[in-house]
């Protein structure tokens, strides 16, 4: 395993009275793909959203335990800086209702880059990085909502890349897409691994097997098992993991 970028220790999370995460501890290694799997409502998305503090937006959330990014407690650092370093791609593609160019430039502009030439370079690099440059280079000024689902999601990945994050959190990024668009995103994610640390939530176990290096299995707020993907799927160490991956529940 590579050196850990994110270390989670004894993390508990409550939405009001309900505990959604129970005493979670795990390390996320650099430049690899970590898959989070489990039945819906198991806490995997909640966990993901804790890593860049998107849960802050939900009223009534209470968190204990520690999450460190590059050795720093994320609840102590500036949240906007954290989200710049730890980017996110959402379940449903959510481009802003602006031009493709402005969508990508949104992040860099947010963090203070205004030079036109510099922005042009960042936009091109991000779009190339997300393998969508050739498709959209002639219509950068067109509204991003005019793209179809697959390209929209790759646009959102490009938008996340444009702020040069170290970590990319992906929340079921292909669940709203057709199989062809899905496989293109998967290819892209595996390419991105060489430069970025990726944490991906998926409900699709084949996907986890196909792309991830290690897998964490969540159930009812507990982290049941966390191991290298190959090992977890071939010789699960826990009865519940075995039942889940063989399709007995979920």
């Amino acid at each position, binding site marked *: 395993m590579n050196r850990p970028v994110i270390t989670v220790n004894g993390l508990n999370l409550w939405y009001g009275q309900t505990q959604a995460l129970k005493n979670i501890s795990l390390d996320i290694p650099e430049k690899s793909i970590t898959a989070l799997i489990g039945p819906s409502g198991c806490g995997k998305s909640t966990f993901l959203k804790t890593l860049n503090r998107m849960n802050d937006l939900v009223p009534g959330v209470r968190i204990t335990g520690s999450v460190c990014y590059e050795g720093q407690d994320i609840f102590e*650092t*500036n949240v*906007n800086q954290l989200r710049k370093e730890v980017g996110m791609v959402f379940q449903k593609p959510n481009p802003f209702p602006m031009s493709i160019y402005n969508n990508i430039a949104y992040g860099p502009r947010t963090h203070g880059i205004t030079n036109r030439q510099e922005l042009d370079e960042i936009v091109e690099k991000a779009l190339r990085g997300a393998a969508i440059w050739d498709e959209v280079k002639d219509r950068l000024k067109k509204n991003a909502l005019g793209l179809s689902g697959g390209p929209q999601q790759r646009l959102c990945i490009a938008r996340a890349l444009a702020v040069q994050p170290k970590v990319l959190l992906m929340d079921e990024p292909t669940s709203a897409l057709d199989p062809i668009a899905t496989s293109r995103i998967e290819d892209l994610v595996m390419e991105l691994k060489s430069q970025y640390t990726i944490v991906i939530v998926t409900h699709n176990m084949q996907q986890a097997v196909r792309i991830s290096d290690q897998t964490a299995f969540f159930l009812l707020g507990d982290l049941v098992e966390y191991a290298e993907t190959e090992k977890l799927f071939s010789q699960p160490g826990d009865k519940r993991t075995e039942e889940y991956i063989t399709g007995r529940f979920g």
Partner: protein
Amino acid sequence: MKSKTNLFETIVHGIFLVLGLITVGCVLLITIYLIISGIPAIREIGLLDFLFGDTWASTAAQPQYGILPFILTSIYGTAGAILLGVPVGFLTAMYLAKMAPKRAKSVMEQAVSLLAGIPSVVYGLVGMMVLVPGIRSLFHIPDGAGLLAAIVVLAVMILPSIIKMSITALEAVPKEYEDASLALGATPEETYFRVSAPAAKSGIAAAVVLGVGRAIGEAMAVMMVAGNAANMPDSLFQSVRFLTTAVASEMSYSSGLQRQALFSIALVLFLFIMLINAALNFFLKGEKKP
């Protein structure tokens, strides 16, 4: 860096909080201004003499400040407008919500919006030029300006709000209710009047209350057709003053206790309106519940 952005965001948050509280501030200011300027005259005149005195003679040598004529006029006038306006408004709303062909409905809805947008002085002007002479010649009386003319003008003016709100309420009735009634062999008309209307009753009640609020608060149109003499509303043809017009007609030249008494009238009107608002809220909540 960290504390700087946080400070900035805190300031922005604070600004928006202030903007959000402006409405509350306005309501408080209006209430306080009305109470402070309305109380002195009531104190001097005496609450009972003020509210139940039947003579208003503010400019007489021995001034008298009884506003019972205005209160009764406002109540009768509003009741009359409701009596005329609600049946017409409700039936129109029923037709538009349930029976009307699509084209007719959209044309009529435009007409209703237009009616709602016409300034009250235009209503007043048409009332002055058409209604007042009409009443005079129809009933062979010396002057047509009076309670009846005011009632008719108010009835027309509250029509759009009653129609709009009733349509909203009627359209919100779940279609299942109506289907169930139709499936039992009831005709569409029976269904709409015996099932839909009762199901929409709090919305329709809210529409009526809204109409009451509009009617009791209208000043200019009424001023142009009601005659404006401070009489008791003994007959439909009596020249009368409403609470609103009592304030408006003397404000520009009043002074001293007379002026203060006008503010007291405004305070009474304000209390009426607050009661009506409370009733409106009650009915609107009732509509949301089921």
